[in-house]
């Protein structure tokens, strides 16, 4: 049985069914991310302090450019289908896929950077903060043995670790701490504070969307492209629908980048 209105517009809506479907899905996605942005606003307003300058603007900017380029290549892939140029479609969609993977690679690097970043509360009331260089072979926090070395700094007041934007010329050096002096040691994972919790939640969900979109784009570029030979119009509509999802993912990042990296 043939599925109706996969190519021809439905008389009452004026568009083919998949397009109505993707817009309904995107509407639900707006509410999903909207709920998380709402949570962000409440957490930020309720927080005594909010970190500034914790995320590297250069990586955020790079990912913004990567996603903008991928949004353009996905539109050009659809336009190439429309004009019947399958070779160009393959090229543009391959570019989209590569850009998507580049985005995820940059994101993974950023996550790793946070994972190896530690804040250590010391027995004398000061704080050591920086990226992990090494732990001695006998390092055991529970047994209080060994040492840990960070590339960072020691501050007397924890509040100095929050607003990095307002501090000029922060000097970083290798700091070695004895396990016996450590009161608390925690990396910059989502458990560290509410900023990192909402950062990992928002960007993690967004990265999952990128991953899901990449799988669909990869399928349409590879095995799914066989449909081009037997039903090019329907295939073109599939490219349009996947493209709309991809543009939405780009739209979400347009707000995530300033909210998390710049403010």
């Amino acid at each position, binding site marked *: 049985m043939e599925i109706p209105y996969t190519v021809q517009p439905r008389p009452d809506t004026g*568009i083919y069914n998949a397009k109505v479907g993707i817009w309904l899905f995107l509407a639900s996605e707006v509410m999903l991310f909207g709920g998380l942005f709402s949570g962000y606003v409440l957490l930020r307003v309720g*927080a005594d302090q909010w970190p500034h300058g914790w995320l590297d603007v250069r990586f955020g900017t790079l990912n913004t450019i990567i996603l903008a380029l991928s949004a353009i290549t996905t539109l050009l892939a659809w*336009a190439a289908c429309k004009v019947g140029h399958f070779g160009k479609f393959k090229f543009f969609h391959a570019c989209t896929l590569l850009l998507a993977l580049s985005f995820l690679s940059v994101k993974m690097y950023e996550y790793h950077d946070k994972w190896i970043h530690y804040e250590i509360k010391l027995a004398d009331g000061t704080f050591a903060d920086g990226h992990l260089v090494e732990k001695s072979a006998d390092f055991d926090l529970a047994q209080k043995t060994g040492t840990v070395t960070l590339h960072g700094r020691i501050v007397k007041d924890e509040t100095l670790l929050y607003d990095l934007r307002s501090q000029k010329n922060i000097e970083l050096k290798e700091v070695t701490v004895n396990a016996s002096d450590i009161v608390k040691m925690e990396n910059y994972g989502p458990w560290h504070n509410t900023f990192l919790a909402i950062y990992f939640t928002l960007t993690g969900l967004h990265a999952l969307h990128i991953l899901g979109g990449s799988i669909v784009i990869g399928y349409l570029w590879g095995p799914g492209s066989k449909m081009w030979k037997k039903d090019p119009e329907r295939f073109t509509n599939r490219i349009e629908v996947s493209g709309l999802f991809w543009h939405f993912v780009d739209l979400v990042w347009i707000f995530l980048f300033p909210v998390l990296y*710049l403010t």
Partner: protein
Amino acid sequence: MSELKATTQTGAPMTGGPDSHGHPVDLNNYIRTCAYVFASVLCATALMIWISFLPEHYTWALKVGLILVVACGNAFVVAGFLMHLISEKKMIYTLLAFTVFFFAGLMGLTLYALQDFPTGTTH
């Protein structure tokens, strides 16, 4: 790109099947539009970064407000031209009107609840 201006594999011009409004798609037009959109995204991004690095006597509230205005403009360009929302069917506008209504309600309730929130949640 020069190859794109030539012809399709079948020798036909680089215009093809109609878009959702019955207008023939012209790949060269799309490439031009994409170039403008990309340039505007770059400008908007640079502007947002510049605003965020304004001196400290500009409060964060002001900076956040300005940055969100630029981000909304950026989003309008992407949604309008890349998602074709600038000239879509009535059905999609209707659907989006509902989305805007509920999203505005969600954010409105969030703002309404700002004074009714436990403080000191940093740690």
